[in-house]
């Protein structure tokens, strides 16, 4: 990957307008349009940023480099994503190093995913749909509409508000950074790698239902053996194995197919 990319056109101008931010916010609705297991939201993420990137990077090589970096794996909450978009566009505008921008993306996507789940799926949705459904269940036709109005009022306030907030946060942050981008890149990478470690332990569900019967005693392999060695042992090992295979230049697609086969065979043998 291109680390320490030097921009062909290092000039930094303030080209992003409020209108651009709004345009990108609308495009953020398509974050998951090309969702897949290899890059997750990367395609839609790039789709959302394109109007901004196009305006910022007048040099073709700079734009190409930036677009390639934004095609890398990305996954966060589909509402709160605009906050990261705002920060990233501010950094792109100031022509920060791609390594630094990537580190910021990775450091923020995990926590925002968790916060978004709590706000949107566990609070907003149950409240709005609870109100709507309680009316509809009595045959009241206003129910479904009340649900949509409550839900989307907050949905769009979050989306547009966070884009603007993210951008202004990003602008003031990169101004303060000045010459210290290297140190900042290191700091962001530390947070990023800490978050990746946390993601491995929380977002991969892999366990075994195997019960070993030894001398009349039933031993649950997952709870009584594996978890005793280390909780989340299997997710950690699986990620490490995937990492090793990627370093041996296996294509992610091979790894995805391998995972599908493992899932099916594992279920057939009732070990997964």
């Amino acid at each position, binding site marked *: *990957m291109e680390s320490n990319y030097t921009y062909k056109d290092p000039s930094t101008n303030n080209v992003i307008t409020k209108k651009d931010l709004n345009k990108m916010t609308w495009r953020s609705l398509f974050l998951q349009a090309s969702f897949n297991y290899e890059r997750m939201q990367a395609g839609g993420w790039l789709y959302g940023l394109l109007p901004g990137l196009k305006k910022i990077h007048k040099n073709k090589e700079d734009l190409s480099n930036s677009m390639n970096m934004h095609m890398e794996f990305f996954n966060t909450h589909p509402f709160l994503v605009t906050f990261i978009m705002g920060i990233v566009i501010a950094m792109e505008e100031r022509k920060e190093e791609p390594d630094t921008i990537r580190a910021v993306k990775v450091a923020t996507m995990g926590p925002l995913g968790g916060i978004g789940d709590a706000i949107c799926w566990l609070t907003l949705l149950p409240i709005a749909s609870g109100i709507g459904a309680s009316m509809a269940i009595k045959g009241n036709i206003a129910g479904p509409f009340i649900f949509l109005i409550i839900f989307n009022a907050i949905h769009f306030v979050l989306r547009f508000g966070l884009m603007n907030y993210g951008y202004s946060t990003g602008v003031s942050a990169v101004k303060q950074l000045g010459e210290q981008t290297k*140190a900042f890149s290191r700091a962001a990478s530390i*947070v990023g790698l800490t978050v990746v470690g*946390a993601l491995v332990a929380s977002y991969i569900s892999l366990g075994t239902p195997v019960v070993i019967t030894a001398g009349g005693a039933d031993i649950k392999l997952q709870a009584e053996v594996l978890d005793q060695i280390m909780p989340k042992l299997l997710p950690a090992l699986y990620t490490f194995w995937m990492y090793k295979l990627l370093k041996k230049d296996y294509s992610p697609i091979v790894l995805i197919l391998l995972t599908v086969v493992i899932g099916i065979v594992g279920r057939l043998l009732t070990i997964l």
Partner: protein
Amino acid sequence: MLGKSLLIALWAGIAGIDLFNGLFHIHRPVFTGMIVGLILGDMKTGLITGATLELIWMGAVPLAGAQPPNVVIGGIVGTAFAILTKQDPKVAVGIAVPFAVAVQGAITLIFTAFSPVMHKADEYAKNTDIKGIERINYLGMLILFIFYAIIAFLPVYFGAEAAESVVAKMPEWLIGGLEVAGGIMPAIGFAMLLKIMYKKEYMAFLIIGFVLVAYFELPILGVALLGLAISLYDYYSNKIKGKGSHRKEARTNGI
């Protein structure tokens, strides 16, 4: 019936896109139930069944990326069955849920099959082909639309009994296996991130993040804040030591 089935298929396609894109939440059963009721000419049953299914799917949200039984198909097909078979909404639920689980398995396959397209996207990105990137995203949504439209059309057109027997014939190992694979899949994305970002000097932080969740079950935000605390400490202690010139980073280029 063909016309009505086609209308339901059209609506399912739109709702299927909304589940992932737009997210106006017109795909929730409380709303789709009403639309299906409107199409099939029994608004009241549509509203009531939709609301019943809504409550069932209330906790079934895509937490931490794990996909619950498909809410779009569950809501639409469940409501359609309730109206067409004149069953109690609760019976419709019994048919809708296993059907929705099977559909979610098929979606795992779509997300797998779409992965190779990303390499085409890399090529477009390299050539700054903005239209190409946009086309790939529109293609993704078109595939979802067609998939949902077909999946909703078949059971409504051929009837609840036919749908039930098809679902019953699907082997558990296939649907269950796809579900297991879907749960493991994020590991590949994390491994790709590690391939790009990992350096030996950062190993400590990777371990810290893992341990905080695996052993201490901290939420991600808590872990991120601790990571931030470490990086602030690191930043300022380097500043004091180096006084302006930062210590040389060990760039182990195993990346």
